[in-house]
């Protein structure tokens, strides 16, 4: 030990005149810009999906109801309440948030004598509510997938000219990847008219437990194979994932489950119907509503006869939806399961012609009317009377029946709904086969943003060579001297809806156009053909703006008659299925009540 070692430490005395490093005002010193401080939530963006609650490893988050926020489509109305007696500020809730509404401020001081005070709903009234700084996740969500797994489809060149199914369906690996994206919030269930257990069957896909998946499907929907292809999938419009990416392909996953379970196994899985009750129910119309009701009633042991005017069961699913969207064998399998439950379907049996309503009423304990909308509307502009002008629903029916339908090299379609797309694309296929090229012009009142058709239908139609003229109001079907159709004269529609989305058309007469074509197809509204009721019953029934009046349980004003489906409610397959369940329940309640009475 030398003197040097004794003295050296003293050299740091030089710092004695340095400025102190002390922070003068430490209390409330601003934290870093990214600091993970107390939570903030944009309540108007928050959809109450509860993903934050699910990921919180501390069990710090509760989903609670907050005044002024009610459940609606794709929004549960619940908001996260955070317990700062649990939170660890890991911000996984922020990272996983589906909408990005949950963030953090850089506020960090909260002192209280009451331990119960540390619970709050961010976004309501906390002092740091409007803090700009604080932690937000960088970029988009990374904790759950944003991009939808691509669905393999036929190329436009390959699919035009035939009626083969376009969509390939997911492979197992693809389905698992897509199912993996689901966060199981369940917001979609309320939106689905049939309230299918969507998160549960997606979980079944993930677990590769297709048996369970199929059972889940059949609990709420006997037309899962149909819906897996052509459902309007409103559920996907309320999917939490759509806020920062693509919604989960719920429809394709449903189809995937069905694709993975062989037909025989299906019947095995859903099990045998209950013991026969001896009760009989007649159902008029073998469409989705009627057959769903038939399925439910048959499973409960009731005898069900379905009367169908056309040659095959399926209703609009068969006669309205073209084969390239819904192959007939897929539909046949769904109907096959229903028939396996003991449902008798009498095809080519038109009520009012082959059997009367009175007979049905006499021979059955209840009659359910599910006749759909099979009558096409006409614009009735000048020139629509006569040859060369057809209605879409009629043509689609004839195509399904394999009839030869009138065809022209250049066809003008009026309408912007799914039926218009269906007929345009069907005719395009026939044209391709007949003439080798497509010549379809589609005019619609609505502008492209307000089309009633699904966006993908519009895209695919265009891919297939359909020329779409949106916002054109039909004025006249032009005919030449011999009365042959030469085209459609239209005016431009400047705007079609007012600010509230109500119909308020404004035409621009100066922008007139003639769409050439030797055939015009009207694909606008549809109506129910209620002539089968007969004059007396029509007079006896209560009506509601052109439709048979029903109550919430689908009872008509006649105690023995029930009505459901498009004819009374609409507008799609899955709604018809939901109606079918509901009407079946009402019928069963009535039958049970009679049982008790006797």
């Amino acid at each position, binding site marked *: 030990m030398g003197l040097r070692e004794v003295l050296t430490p003293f050299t740091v005395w030089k710092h004695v005149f340095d400025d102190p490093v002390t922070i003068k005002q430490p209390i409330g010193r601003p934290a870093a810009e990214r600091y993970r401080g107390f939570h903030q939530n944009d309540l108007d963006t928050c959809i109450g999906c509860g993903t934050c609650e699910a990921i919180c490893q501390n069990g710090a988050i509760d989903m609670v109801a907050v005044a002024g926020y009610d459940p609606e489509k794709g929004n549960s*109305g619940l908001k996260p309440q955070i317990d700062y007696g649990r939170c660890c500020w890991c911000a996984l809730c922020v990272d996983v948030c589906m909408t990005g509404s949950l963030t953090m401020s850089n506020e960090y001081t909260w002192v209280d004598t009451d331990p119960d005070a540390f619970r709050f709903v961010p976004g309501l009234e906390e002092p740091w509510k409007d803090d700009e700084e604080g932690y937000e996740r960088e970029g988009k969500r990374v904790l759950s997938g944003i991009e939808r797994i691509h669905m393999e489809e036929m190329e436009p060149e390959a699919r035009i000219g035939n009626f083969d199914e376009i969509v390939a369906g997911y492979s197992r690996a693809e389905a698992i990847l897509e199912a993996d994206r689901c966060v199981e919030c369940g917001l979609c269930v309320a939106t689905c008219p049939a*309230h299918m257990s969507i998160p549960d069957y997606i979980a079944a896909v993930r677990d590769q437990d297709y048996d369970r998946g199929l059972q889940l499907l059949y609990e709420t929907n006997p037309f899962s194979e149909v819906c897996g292809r052509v459902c309007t999938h409103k559920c996907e419009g309320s999917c939490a994932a759509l806020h920062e990416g693509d919604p989960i392909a719920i429809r394709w996953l449903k189809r995937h489950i069905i694709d993975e379970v062989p037909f025989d196994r299906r019947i095995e899985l859903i099990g045998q119907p209950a013991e026969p009750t001896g009760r009989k129910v007649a159902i008029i119309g073998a469409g989705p509503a009627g057959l769903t009701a038939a399925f439910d009633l048959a499973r409960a042991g009731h005898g069900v006869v379905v009367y169908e005017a056309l040659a095959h069961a399926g209703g609009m699913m068969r006669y309205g939806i073209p084969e390239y969207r819904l192959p007939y064998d897929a539909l046949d399998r769904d109907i096959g399961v229903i028939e396996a439950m003991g449902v008798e379907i009498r095809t080519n049996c038109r009520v009012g012609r082959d059997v009367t309503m009175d007979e049905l009423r006499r021979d059955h304990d209840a009659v359910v009317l599910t006749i759909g909308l099979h009558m096409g509307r006409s614009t009735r502009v000048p020139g629509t009377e006569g040859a060369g002008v057809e209605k879409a629903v009629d043509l689609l029916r004839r195509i399904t029946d394999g009839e030869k339908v009138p065809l022209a090299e250049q066809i003008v379609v009026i309408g912007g709904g799914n039926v218009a797309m269906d007929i345009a694309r069907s005719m395009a296929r026939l044209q391709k086969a007949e003439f080798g090229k497509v010549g379809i012009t589609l005019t619609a009142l609505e502008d492209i943003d307000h089309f009633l058709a699904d966006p993908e239908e519009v895209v695919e139609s265009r891919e297939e060579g359909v020329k779409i003229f949106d916002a054109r109001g039909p004025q006249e079907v032009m005919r030449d001297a011999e009365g042959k159709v030469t085209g459609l004269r239209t005016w431009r529609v400047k705007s079609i809806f007012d600010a509230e989305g109500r119909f308020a058309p404004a035409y621009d007469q100066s922008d007139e156009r003639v769409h050439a074509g030797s055939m015009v197809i009207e694909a606008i509204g549809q109506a129910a053909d209620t002539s089968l009721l007969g004059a007396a019953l029509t007079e006896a029934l209560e009506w509601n703006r052109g439709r048979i009046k029903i109550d919430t349980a689908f009872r008509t004003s006649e105690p023995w008659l029930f009505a459901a489906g498009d004819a009374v409610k609409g507008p799609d397959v899955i709604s018809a299925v939901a109606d079918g369940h509901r009407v079946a329940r009402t019928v069963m309640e009535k039958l049970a009540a009679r049982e008790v009475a006797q």
Partner: protein
Amino acid sequence: MRDIHALLKQRHRLGPLEPRKGGLAFVTVPRENLRGLLLELRDTHGFTHLVLLTAVDWMEDGLFQLTYMLNNRGRDLTLGIRVMIDREEAQGDTIHDMWPTAATYQRELKEMFGIDFPGSPRLDEEFILEGWTDLPPYRRDFDSLAYSQQTYAERPGRVTHDPREYMKSKLYPDGV
């Protein structure tokens, strides 16, 4: 690693070598072969560093897996040696004579899993827990949350709602 495995296999009943990336591999041996294997690895093959000793509870199979992780520092090889022992009469062979530090691991295993290592020093002394009367907590049949809820009071008054059920109750209470 494969060379050592091939060499050892002649004298010990080794399972197949399960290599992972970065000089790491796992191998299973029967309990009676363990000490001999460890000795040989330590003295002949340079696996002188006992990285860790721990157990995995395979409750469904009625087994405990003891994992002895040895490291050869010179060649940067790590070998995880698995010994499966019966869960009901959980007993292992002490190796504190080879690595004194193993006594600590064995004390922990005794306390946390209830695995006995006869001959290991201070085995029955309390290590981490104090006054513990329940099942050894790392056993999988010990439910931490249930124990916690039965023993310690939580702050009451919290309620949560499942979004799906909540929407059902508000939008379609009768199910349709």
